[in-house]
């Protein structure tokens, strides 16, 4: 199989300009990135749930989801927490700087294939709202194609909540059942949302599993305790979707580190149903 004719540098990123920087919460920042290459900007497309490798030359690459809606063209957004070498470098970029982006990689939430025409419950925890937000905006941009929309979002405290402007917008939008909560003790004076961990609040909000899909993202501990609540409420495992986050370097199934059991999170994930998660060994 001669391959030389088709060889391109699959590790070469697109060059992106930082258009906007939004500080979501202490240590969490969102970057709005525009493609510098005109041709790429025109026909770049991705599906909600896909991720990319964001890079600062000299620091390296790291992986986050694409947080903007798949219906939004010409740019993409990512939200990240300052934890390591590359996120610290990303933290220092200013508007107008250039960063790299490689993607879109991985599978995606089956909106067109399955979820359209049904009820959908979005549950986000902490910065885990980023991948869910991409799906929410993709869904809200085509609101008529979905029946009931419920959004439940929780964070450790009010100031640690991300996309605060959009939370307020969703709260006011008719036709969205919106619930926000903070962990006990995280509520500031005059807090208008719920108080309690996401699993308890989901149980209390008790979204109906009838003809509904659930999309759930957050830290492994959050998923571990919220998943059983959804099952108890009657959501069948095949209709609960979540994403897995693993250490990644290549993002395209070569470097061998992101597998959970036999599944490469970068190729066969990051989106999995609860049913698929049950098959995976507890290695995430």
């Amino acid at each position: 199989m001669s391959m030389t004719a088709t060889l391109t540098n699959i590790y070469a990123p697109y060059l992106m300009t930082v258009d906007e920087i939004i500080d979501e919460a202490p240590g969490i920042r969102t970057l709005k990135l525009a493609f510098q290459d005109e041709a790429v900007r025109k026909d770049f497309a991705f599906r909600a749930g896909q991720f990319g490798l964001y890079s600062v030359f000299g620091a390296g690459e790291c992986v986050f989801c694409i947080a903007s809606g798949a219906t939004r063209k010409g740019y993409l957004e990512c939200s990240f927490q300052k934890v390591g070498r590359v996120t610290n470098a990303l933290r220092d970029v200013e508007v107008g700087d250039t960063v790299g982006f490689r993607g879109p990689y991985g599978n995606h939430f089956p909106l067109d294939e399955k979820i359209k025409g049904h009820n959908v419950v979005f549950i986000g925890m902490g910065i885990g709202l980023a991948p869910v937000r991409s799906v929410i905006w993709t869904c809200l941009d085509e609101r008529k194609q979905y029946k009931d929309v419920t959004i439940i979002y929780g964070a450790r405290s009010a100031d640690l909540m991300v996309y605060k402007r959009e939370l307020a917008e969703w709260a006011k939008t008719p036709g969205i059942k919106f619930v926000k909560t903070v962990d006990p003790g995280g509520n500031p004076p005059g807090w208008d949302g719920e108080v309690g961990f996401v699993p308890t609040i989901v149980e209390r909000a008790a979204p109906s599993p009838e003809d509904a899909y659930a999309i759930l993202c957050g830290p492994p501990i959050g998923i571990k305790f919220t998943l059983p609540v959804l099952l108890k409420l009657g959501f069948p495992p095949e209709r609960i979707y979540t994403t897995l986050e693993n250490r990644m370097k290549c993002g395209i199934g070569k470097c061998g580190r992101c597998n959970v059991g036999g599944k490469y999170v970068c190729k066969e994930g990051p989106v999995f149903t609860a049913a698929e998660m049950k098959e995976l060994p507890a290695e995430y």
Partner: protein
Amino acid sequence: MATIITAENLKQLAREMLKAGYRVIAPAKQADLVVFKAIKDAQEMLPESEYILPQASFKEFVFPRCECILRYRFGEGGKPVFESPNLDGEPPQAVIGCRPCDAASLPILDKIFGWDYVDPFYFKRREKTAVISVACSRAGEGCFCTSAGYAPDSTAGSDILLKKCAGGKYAAEVLSDKGRQLAEKFGSLFEKVEATPPVEVAGLNPAFDVEKIKPWLDKHFDDPLWLEIAARCMGCGTCAYGCPTCHCFDMVDEGDLAGGCRLKNWDTCSSALFTKHGSGHNPRSSQEQRYRQRVLHKFKYYLEKFGLRACVGCGRCTARCPVNLDLRGVLQTIAGKQA
């Protein structure tokens, strides 16, 4: 009709290939070690009788331990620009004198590096690599190729397979277009003979039935056997970096204020950093979980995805291991434990 090449002509083949601009890779002496080297002179080539298996496979010549995948520099206003290294123009290279197990690693590596995205840095070298392997006339202590689905004279991955016969000659079997082109281009060094002379190929009875491995692995992710086997694993990369089929790599940027490179470096699943998240969480925090990943990847996941096991049974991992952790023994135990 059969084709024969004398040991002297094999050396002459290396000489002529060097002259023709080939990079010739052959087992050669490195102090007290036998290693694959890009030889400068055919004299460096060791005769087949002087080695069974070089210290590491020739993987380094199709998948270098450290390679630049893009060069960046900061232009005006600190704006980064980058260039990719040349994806064509690799010199043709020929591996002469490797063993069938090492040659068999290439079809295995092709699977992962060709899965969906085609890795240009592997294939730009792989395409230009011809493999002239020599069947084993005697088996090594650690060898278990016959248990991994190969044999001292298997043909997988070879372009020409030589088998030792009397009088310092080799029976040459052309196995691919590339092999045929080589045999024609350097035709004068090969002789045609009526019947294939008797050849000397080692016998090696299998140590275990490899078909029994995956069924056990499918159901024993949390078996205490892993801790028992791997508690003594040191967590170094010696097995992975000598292994013909280990292909995992790390990606790092190295440079200074003027610019630098994004590098693709060998990596190993036995290191804790391999899977450690930025948050500090590590899905594989202890050594036996990491050793389990090595066995599952080679004997279950790779088989499920690509229909090939990522092991050719060369036995280097055991020989090189500082604590002599015996993969063949582990597989024998697993095969014996049929659920």
